[in-house]
């Protein structure tokens, strides 16, 4: 018998009972069809929990794919741009994957769980492409998005919180490392990864233990000032840390309808993820050509004058439009007004001075500002504690 039609209604994550209780603002968003909080109590407090104490983010809706089988490594090496053989068991790697035209379909992280056993975390859904990419490989690909509950625990006191929760030895885990603990008879996987640019971890567990994990985590974290945070605070943190988001900073290649709207890794400032020495991977031929012939665009992080976020701004050079902003925010920790922009070549080199055309509204009054801005070399927030092992005291 068929399912009832409400089976297709909005989903909730396994943490929902706790999230709902904590979400005093009752301010919800829709992330990949899951009800997720935009903010719990106060966006500012949530953001500063991440930067000063511990913030917790429910990232269950993130798409998770399990890749296993004898050809798993070869498969991934053909799928993504970087050399997967360099991601050892117990390590995590950030990468992008492209179509044959060398256009980015998405970025994500590859978790090397065990020999011939990987997990890919991706923002966009990808099971169709991942299956096509399996042509010629002995590999199985499972969508395990709903089978794995996940929390990001981020901030200077995150390690202390998790140690207090009993995750002994976690302080020895290096950035992009992963390890496992036993939690109430289930495996709790912890990786030192995140989307905030700060010291932080991500916790992965079977859904039926999700609520118990949340409770234990918040109990242990109370002395370390733990607080859940929503997508609004995350947005501020990721821009400050220089992280791109699919659908915002680039258009996933296969979903782009209009000609020329997709971007290559080079054009997104992710050329460092491309290993052209690999004999074959999706997009290689096109990327070799692009390397020889030049890119159309350049990704630029802009330091924008003033304190008005350059959201949706045109970027000008000598009065002529040379680019557009994809993400922008005032970064409270770095005290910088940051924008990510797609700049037409040859503009956008580090150090170049440009102008952002910013529109903002106060009390229904619109103001247009031509704010000078400058292309900077690296993200404005990159603390040492993010890399130190063991993490320094807070």
């Amino acid at each position, binding site marked *: 018998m068929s399912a009832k039609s409400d089976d297709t209604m909005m989903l909730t994550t396994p943490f929902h009972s706790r999230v709902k209780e904590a979400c005093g603002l009752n301010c919800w968003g829709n992330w990949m069809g899951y009800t997720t909080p935009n903010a719990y109590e106060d966006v500012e407090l949530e953001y500063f929990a991440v930067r000063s104490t511990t913030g917790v983010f429910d990232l269950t809706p993130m798409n998770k794919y399990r890749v296993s089988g004898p*050809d798993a490594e070869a498969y991934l090496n*053909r799928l993504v741009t970087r050399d997967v053989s360099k991601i050892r068991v117990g390590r995590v790697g950030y990468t992008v994957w492209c*179509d044959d035209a060398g256009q980015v379909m998405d970025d994500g992280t590859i978790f090397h769980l065990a020999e011939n056993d990987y997990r890919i975390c991706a923002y966009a859904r990808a099971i169709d492409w991942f299956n096509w990419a399996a*042509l010629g490989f002995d590999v199985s690909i499972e969508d395990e998005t709903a089978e794995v509950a996940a929390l990001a625990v981020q901030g200077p006191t995150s390690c202390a919180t998790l140690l207090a929760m009993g995750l002994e030895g976690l302080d020895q885990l290096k950035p992009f490392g992963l390890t496992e603990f036993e939690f109430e008879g289930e495996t709790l996987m912890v990786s030192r990864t995140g989307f905030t640019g700060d010291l932080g971890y991500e916790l992965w567990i079977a859904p039926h233990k999700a609520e118990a994990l949340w409770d234990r985590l918040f109990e242990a974290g109370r002395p370390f000032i733990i607080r859940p945070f929503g997508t609004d605070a995350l947005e501020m943190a990721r821009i400050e840390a220089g992280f791109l988001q699919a659908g915002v900073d680039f258009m996933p290649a296969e979903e782009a309808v209009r000609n020329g709207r997709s971007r290559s890794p080079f054009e997104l400032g992710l050329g460092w993820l491309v290993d052209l020495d690999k004999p*074959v991977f999706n997009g290689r*031929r096109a990327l070799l050509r692009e390397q020889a012939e030049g890119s159309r665009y350049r990704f630029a992080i802009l330091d924008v004058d003033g304190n008005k976020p350059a959201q949706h701004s045109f970027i000008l050079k000598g009065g002529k439009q040379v680019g557009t902003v994809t993400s922008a925010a005032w970064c409270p920790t770095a005290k910088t007004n940051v924008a990510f922009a797609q700049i037409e070549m040859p503009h956008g080199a580090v150090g170049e001075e440009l102008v952002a055309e910013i529109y903002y509204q106060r009390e229904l009054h619109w103001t247009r500002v031509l704010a000078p801005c400058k292309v900077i070399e690296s993200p404005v927030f990159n603390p040492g504690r993010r890399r130190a092992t063991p993490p320094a005291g807070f």
Partner: protein
Amino acid sequence: MTDNYDAVMVGAGHNGLICATYLAKAGKKVLVLEANATPGGCAATREFAPGYSVSSCAQWLNQLHPAISRDLALEQHGLQWAAQNLPSISLDEQGKHLSLLGNKVEGANVSAEDRAAFVAFHAKTEKYARLLVKAFEARAPKLVESNLTDRLTLIKLGLGLKMMGRDDMSDLMRIILINMYDVMEESFDSAQLKGLLSLDSLLGSRMGPRTPNTVFGYLYRRVGETLGNNGQALVKGGMGALGEAMAASARAAGVEIRLQSPVASIDVEADRAVGVTLAGGEQITAPLVVSNADPVTTFQHLVGFARMETGMARRVSHIRCKSGTAKLHLALSGLPQFTGLDDAQHGARLLVAPDMNYIERAYNAVKYDEYSSAPALDISIPTLHDATLAPAGGHVLSAIVQFAPYAPEGGWEAHRETFMQLVIERIAAFAPGIREQIISSQLLTPADLESDYRMSGGHWHHGELSLDQIMMMRPFPGATQYGTAFDGLYLCGAGAHPGGGVMGLAGRNAAREIIKRGAAA
């Protein structure tokens, strides 16, 4: 490790041999590797019962380009004709047969109007076919990234189209997109004539007379006639003798041919083809690898999907190459007697295609992976022209059978005997005593043709000749103009432009392209 060849050819099919010969004549040292024991690919003769041999795959020759025949001096290398200019006869159960040769139709059921209409139709379609010849003799032009060569081809085609006059031009543009059924209904009254011509439009394909694209199929077939091959021809010794003559010509040009040497893989390093590895493990390196194998075999099985980018693998997996064609071979103790045919007529091409709806219904079955309960047939009795194929007094009947699925439910072994008896029954309706004459019989299903001749899906043309799989879409976008995503790897088989049918243009065009690019590099 052997590595002193300029080029390695995978497969000694007719296109492979033709391509190899042209390359050798251009000074290249070419090695041809063939899995089977005889050269020729689908141009093959095999003994299917003791003392009885048959052209076991292609059975007629009517498309071979005369310039290629000349360039390869095939007659000097042993090609002999058993018969030429044979008419096609559409059989009627009552013996009221219809005969067609060139622009002449004869038969009890054909009116004077139809006869006249056919002369006009023949002349008109010949004009169209001539334009196709122009398109087929060159590589398929690219449209966006076109270079001078492509633009010249496009100009030639454009002019050819204009020269036909506005009416013919718009007529061609209309009918090439539609189906044979409608064009036949517009043109003729005789059900038999309409049936015969529609069968011609779809032999070897998985289409019915009502399937759009069949007019293209008909024009494709008419290319042979336009090139000067009037009627049907039979090769002495069967089609295998054509393969042997081509092989002899190739050898004379300096080509080395190794039979029974199946290629296990085409070896690539990053974006370059570097050679091949034989099933026995031997590696042969060469800067050029040319594949006469079909695109699916070439890319999926010989190069391997894992060696190419995903989008390309996906395109290969979308090629439609499942055949709907089977072959029946009968070893007969004597000449079968078809009702109403005189002895000489028994040597013609005999068709069971009484009307278009008959063929259409036969086609319906294969859409659902079933076989036709009343199939359409294209029958040859080659022994009337060529005594070498059977013991004295014996005869061979060979029939192309439309339609049989590639993979019927439950597998072919569950159906083979039933279907074979059904086809024989169909023939017996026209040649009542034939059952008593059968000494031995053989049915080759699409699956058999696939394994015997290493053609994916068992398809004659290495991929359906439908409008979405021709010209700059053949075999798939990104692998047109014979070159591939791998430097040094070329295609020269029927899967490439313009297609199969023992025409030889794919092989010749590929050789020209390889030579030209070699000069440019």
